[in-house]
């Protein structure tokens, strides 16, 4: 290899791109307006007048890790309920609907109390209570204007309306023509100031269908759920974001409302707006509408820390599907000073056709169709997993994948990565940042995430300094610290031709 030439080129590129990034931060600092309202809500506005449109991202610093005990899936359920409207959106008569919804909750509580009795449950009484509950739902339904929230957004030109819940956070997003900014402020503030838990139990059925789709009816979905349940003990990362079926069948609208009042607080939310928006005009509008959210302190942080793992763990799933190999190692949260070192390992091991996993397992050994290693399973806010996976090609096995991954890990622990590899990581990180600046949606999300995670959106650019400081020694040190056998959890799919007995009629 023409090592010195590659080095020289790399250095040249570094010299070219570094000032660029610095320039971006300077130009962005002029274009980003940040304000924390008296109620604690942080709002960022970035002017990007390329076209008369804007995108927003609302980040709630609460995810499924905050699901109460026995109520897994509640954070995600709340996300679904945030599309159900308010006293002003989605109803023909809120005063009457409110009374009817209270009756639904009473009836459900009575039904649920009977349903969960261990001893002395009366089937006849249960059926009657169920009917009363269903009748109450039918009565409340009469006032509902279906999906009016979504309809307002879409008929005013909103696109990409969506939301997601992860272990770490809940996000809401869409884009609109820029003349709709006040409508946006009106409905988005209403949505988080005055949500109404209408159609809760039907939406709960919808979420159960989502669980059947993502987890129960998918071999990979089943593997990931079992794998995380095995890798984590204390941290809520061991539970599924979608929720266990029995919890979905149990929690109530009252539970969701309680969760909402506890976590959906302005002090726990960041909103970023990006597009053809004049901050001088838009910030007062945002303030006028969002000031109606109550002033409350930020909810307490999760204090449980995953204890060290001291023995290898393993889950094997017998599936009517082709084999799959997955292994994970506990690593600290994103706040760890070595966070950029983990990113370097991910890049060098997994990014594209020059990556070590591709070149060794796919190209040279020809045992995998795909293979990679990455951080962030299943989240990054708390200590989580650095995972490796391999998809064996026909005629090859999980054992071969496991062995090949171990060889790559050993190499990382015992030999320095090359100058080219390290430089490639740094160059690509900078270029990716630049590419990310081209979209309103992407920028809004990045600004909100960095503001929430670091208390300052500028960390999005300052992160590059940390990337630049990563050394070969750092990579070896971190690899040796984390990739230890007793810190490992293994998950595999093993192929069977008949379904295991317990999977038949799975529900």
């Amino acid at each position, binding site marked *: 290899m023409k090592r010195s030439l590659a080095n020289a080129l790399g250095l040249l590129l570094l010299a070219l791109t570094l000032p660029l990034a610095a320039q971006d931060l300077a130009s962005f600092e002029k274009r980003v307006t940040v304000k924390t309202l008296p109620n604690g809500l942080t709002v960022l506005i970035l002017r990007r007048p390329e*076209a008369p449109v804007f995108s927003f991202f609302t980040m709630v610093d609460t995810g499924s890790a905050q699901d109460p005990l026995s109520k897994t899936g509640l954070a995600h359920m709340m996300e679904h309920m945030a599309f159900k409207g308010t006293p002003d959106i989605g109803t023909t008569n809120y005063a009457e609907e409110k009374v009817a919804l209270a009756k639904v909750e009473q009836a459900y509580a009575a039904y649920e109390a009977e349903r969960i009795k261990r001893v002395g449950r009366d089937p006849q009484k249960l059926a009657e209570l169920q009917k009363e509950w269903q009748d109450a739902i039918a009565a409340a339904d009469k006032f509902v204007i279906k999906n009016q929230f979504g309809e307002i957004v879409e008929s005013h030109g909103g696109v990409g309306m969506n939301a997601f819940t992860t272990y770490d956070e809940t996000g809401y997003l869409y884009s609109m023509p820029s003349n709709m900014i006040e409508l946006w402020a009106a409905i988005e503030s209403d949505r988080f100031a005055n949500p109404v838990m209408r159609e809760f139990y039907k939406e709960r059925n919808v979420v159960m269908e989502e669980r059947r789709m993502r987890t129960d009816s998918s071999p990979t979905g089943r593997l990931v759920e079992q794998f995380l349940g095995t890798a984590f003990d204390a941290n809520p990362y061991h539970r599924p974001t979608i929720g266990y079926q029995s919890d979905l069948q149990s929690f109530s609208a009252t539970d969701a409302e309680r969760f909402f009042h506890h976590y959906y607080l302005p002090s726990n939310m960041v909103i970023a707006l990006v597009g053809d928006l004049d901050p001088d005009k838009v910030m007062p509008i945002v*303030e006028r509408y969002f000031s109606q959210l109550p002033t409350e302190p930020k909810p307490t942080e999760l204090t449980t820390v995953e204890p060290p793992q001291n023995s290898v763990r393993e889950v094997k799933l017998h599936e009517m*599907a082709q084999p799959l190999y997955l292994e994970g190692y506990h690593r600290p949260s994103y706040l760890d000073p070595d966070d950029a070192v983990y990113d370097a390992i991910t890049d060098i091991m997994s990014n594209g*056709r020059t990556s070590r996993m591709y070149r060794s397992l796919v190209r040279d050994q020809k045992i995998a169709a795909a293979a990679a290693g990455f951080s962030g399973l299943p989240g990054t806010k708390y200590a989580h997993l650095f995972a490796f996976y391999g998809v064996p090609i026909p005629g090859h096995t999980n054992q071969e994948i496991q062995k090949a991954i171990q060889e790559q890990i050993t190499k990382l622990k015992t030999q320095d990565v090359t100058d080219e590899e390290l430089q490639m990581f740094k160059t690509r990180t900078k270029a990716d940042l630049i590419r990310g600046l081209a979209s309103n949606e992407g920028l809004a999300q990045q600004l909100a995430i960095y503001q929430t995670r670091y208390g300052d959106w500028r960390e999005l650019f300052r992160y590059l300094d940390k990337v630049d400081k990563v050394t070969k020694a750092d990579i070896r040190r971190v690899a040796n610290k984390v990739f230890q056998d007793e810190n490992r959890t293994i998950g595999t799919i093993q192929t069977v031709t008949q379904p295991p007995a317990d999977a038949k009629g799975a529900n």
Partner: protein
Amino acid sequence: MRNRRSPFALLLLSVALAAGACAQTQPTPWNQLKFPPLPAFQPQQPVRIQLANGMVIFLQPDHELPLISASASIRGGAISEPAAKTGLVSLYGDVWRTGGTKTRTGDQMDDFLEARAAKIETGDGSGSTSVSLNCLKGDFDAVFDMYLDLLHNPEFRADKLDLAKQQMYTGIARRNDEVGSIVGRESAILAYGKDNPYAREEQYATVAAVTRQDLVNWHQQYVHPNNIIFGISGDFDPKAMEAKLRQAFEAWPKGAQAKDPEVKFPPTKPGYYFIEKTDVNQSTIAMVDLGILRDNPDYFAVSVMNEIFGGGFSSRLFNNVRAAKGLAYSVGGGVGSSFNHPGMTNIRMQTKSETTVVGVQALYEEIDKMHDKAPDADELKRAKDQILNSFIFRFDTPEKVLREKMAYEFYHYPLDFLERYRGEIEKVTAEQVQAVAKKYLQKDKLAVLVLGNDPNFDKPLSSLGPVTKVDITIPPPPKELMQQMGMQGPPGEN
């Protein structure tokens, strides 16, 4: 970048605005708001150049970021490959890039490009193949040189063909693992027929039959300037770039004109089709039929009808099947359209095993309602508003405008198709919506595919009508291939 005001002026302005804002401190209810008109926006149109050799070039400068990206669409795609070599174009689209050029291996290209965070990639589709690049503008000349080298001098090295074949064999072995891939594949086969080039699937044997020479021949047959539409966007000077592209492409001689094969589209065979999957607790329902071409005069009424029926959060399928009945998380669909062949009409939902037949009936009910009555004025207006008010998002970036124009050029559509679309949508009436629903959404013409675990169904599927079982067994690899790959038996049994 765009900071014209001095900080002092800005300060004054914000004080003034803050004072103004004090007058109005209460939120206004959403339905009492008045909106200013959207500022007039004329998206920048790319410059179109046609070279004497037939190549069409679009230049779309965009100086926001120091990046350049380009892509060539080349006529000729998978529908033109021989059935016995299904998978050929997919292999070509992969090995064109990974197999490198006469003077550089694909791996050397990877090293060169990744060190610059740049990409050159090749791809394939049903009617075209492509070569694209993306780089920081400072690297453009070096990356473009490599791009031209790949365009003119590909080597299709045998080791990379083997690698690509292995990837495809893996895909074949895994095609029945996840519900989505099974239903996606089998519903297209039902709509178009199993031998139709838009639906047929590669098999071990058809992939094994492809040789390096096939890839070389394909390249010689199709990659000529008169078959290429080239688009470039990013931070460049258009005059200088035009000169550079003329220099690169003008001397390239014309070649044989690509011609798509005549594809027949016999009507979809209606009826009920069943795929058994014992390890699921949810059924997937797909109702399919042939759709329409995008140059059909009904296309605009169909667009509005789709919006009402099954598009987005405010559609009837979403409102009635998901929100009101709680039967599904995933539900949607409508009449499909494509530029150059009938699209696929596809109505899909996933519901628990115990509501499978109820689910089919719920979809039927929504089709009936589209037939029975024209939408009322409110619903029609909402659907049109959705399309018209979000219209800006079809061209809110220079890149999107470029891609639209390239597609129209490729399919010989008028270049102002998008501009005309707006006016045509405005004209659609409620009666037209009802008429296209009756014409293109017909229950007795639909092939209804259900995948699921039938002992748990609410009622047997046969209660709806005669059911044809669909066999999704993967044809085993030829013997020699099994030996070559070290397999004891077909995948799944080793």
